[in-house]
């Protein structure tokens, strides 16, 4: 008898009783909504692969991935993507050099030092920073940061990797900061107490206990931020130039994968030509790179999740 009563208590998921047609119809509808996201992924992959195949019919994948010249829009055409990858990594690298120390330091401040009231005042401001459209950051890089930097480096070209990278770094600070802060806040208080009880200063508690204990979340935050910087488009399209070039000199004009796609989208490149298909080959590469980084960061969190 008691057993029966227990069985009849519905588990919250999975109750299907009464009016089966309506219930089932609604459930089907909701499932259909959920499947939209699956189809989006399939759509992205199929679209990129199919269109990129149009490109790889004319250009070998080896030439694409190992060539060091990228001039698809004029003669003689070269289809080596490395200059675009190089430009992308250069700007993203500069961005991470800015965002990593600043974002981490601000996460430490917010999680270990700041009073509640300060935290409540600062966090919405950082959210605003994260919500500024990228085209605005691009404008800021080109019309404010570049002239400023040209006072310091007179040889700097108007469109350059440095301004774009720096501003992109500012853009991803909130991401590094808030994800790292979440990871640090998740470190139990008891560990902090233990360290304070052993005569550690606040700084020592933060750097020797809290940060090591939150390391998986912090690393994941940095990878996600890097992936975001690699996929960022408008800042580089506006401020970094459109000269595909393999260089480590941040004062020069470069082109990233994303800004190349924008450049082609702006022109009226005829549909069906190899020039048109280049953007899908580049887009596919971009998608694979960012996807791998996102998957890696998820795997990293799972693999190195701390058990306190």
């Amino acid at each position, binding site marked *: 008898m008691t057993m029966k009563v227990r069985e009849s208590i519905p588990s919250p998921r999975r109750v299907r009783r009464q009016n089966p047609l309506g219930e089932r119809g609604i459930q089907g509808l909701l499932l259909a909504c959920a499947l939209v996201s699956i189809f989006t992924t399939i759509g992205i992959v199929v679209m990129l692969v199919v269109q990129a195949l149009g490109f790889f019919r004319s250009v070998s994948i080896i030439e694409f991935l190992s060539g060091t010249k990228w001039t698809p829009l004029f003669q003689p055409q070269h289809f080596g993507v490395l200059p675009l990858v190089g430009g992308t990594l250069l700007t993203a690298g500069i961005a991470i050099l800015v965002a990593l120390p600043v974002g981490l*330091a601000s996460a430490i*401040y917010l999680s270990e030092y700041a009073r509640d009231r300060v935290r409540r005042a600062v966090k919405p401001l950082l959210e605003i920073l994260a*919500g500024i459209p990228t085209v605005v950051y691009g404008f800021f890089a080109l019309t404010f940061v570049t002239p400023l930097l040209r006072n310091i480096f007179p040889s700097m070209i108007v469109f350059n990797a440095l301004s774009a990278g720096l501003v992109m770094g500012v853009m991803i600070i909130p991401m590094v900061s808030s994800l790292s802060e979440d990871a640090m806040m998740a470190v139990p208080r008891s560990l902090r107490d233990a360290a304070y009880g052993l005569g550690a200063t606040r700084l020592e508690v933060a750097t020797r206990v809290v940060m090591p204990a939150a390391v998986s979340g912090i690393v994941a935050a940095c990878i996600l931020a890097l992936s975001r910087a690699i996929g960022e488009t408008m800042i580089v399209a506006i401020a970094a130039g459109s000269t595909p070039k393999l260089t480590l000199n941040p004062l020069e004009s470069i082109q990233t994968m994303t800004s190349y796609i924008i450049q082609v989208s702006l022109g009226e490149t005829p549909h069906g030509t190899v020039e048109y298909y280049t953007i899908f080959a580049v887009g596919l590469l971009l998608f694979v790179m960012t996807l791998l980084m996102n998957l890696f960061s998820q795997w990293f969190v799972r693999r190195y999740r701390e058990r306190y």
Partner: protein
Amino acid sequence: MKKDPAFRQQLRTRQLRGRSFSVLFLMATLTGILVLTVLLVDVLRDGIGWLDWQFITSYPSRKPDEAGVLSALFGTLWVMVLTALFSLPVGVGTAIYLEEYAPDNRLRRLIQTNINNLAGVPSIVYGLLGLSLFVQALALGRSVLAGALTMTLMSLPVIIIAAQEAIRSVPQAHRLGAYALGATCWQVVRHIVLPSALPGVLTGSILAMSRAIGEAAPMIAISALVYLTFIPTSIMDRFTVLPIQIFNWVSRPQAEFGNLAAAGIIVLLVVLLSMNATAIILRNRYQRRTEE
């Protein structure tokens, strides 16, 4: 050993190091806010003089004095409304399915992982998807509809994640109470979960959409750079949006266009700000109600 003067000396050094770093950490926290201030001042200084009624009510023009954002502003509003119409039901539906219906099986985990990954796909890739799927394969052309559908796909993952959080915050006891009275799953969702999760869902969705509205990259892939002197009147019309118009002006060498860009940015920020304000008001009203 306990009164070791060397220890005292060393402790002073440690405390000094701690204090210096705390100043450094505070400065790092203020960096972002400082840049935000400089950015806003820079934009206002460049653009406020150009922002007038004429600017709002004029079409783009080759002559900076006569140029305005009318078509871009309306394009943005069109895309915004359509995106909301498409993405809200689908996003909330997905969140309800994942939180209330889906058994904890591989399909659910697949959908969840997939959504997390979609949230990290660069916006320009959504632009490419929209270009080949909506503009070309479905032959919608470079229309408002194609733009809104692209925006929908792009903002969906963020909306779903926000809606899931709101739904998860509804206490389990409320659900169990309703189930105990013999309610079906949908009745519980309809009468218990949605009413209390709705403000949170709306707040999250509006914030997600305001992010999407500011994105220029995918819209450039869809719409290209157009010079439009009309307001879209149907969903199949060509369109432009504020971020594209701003990008267009930024890319021109003449200083006046830089000012136009700044004025355009002010308009864009006002649009986004009012969306955010709506979200915050919703959140506050909701919080007040739960406190009663």
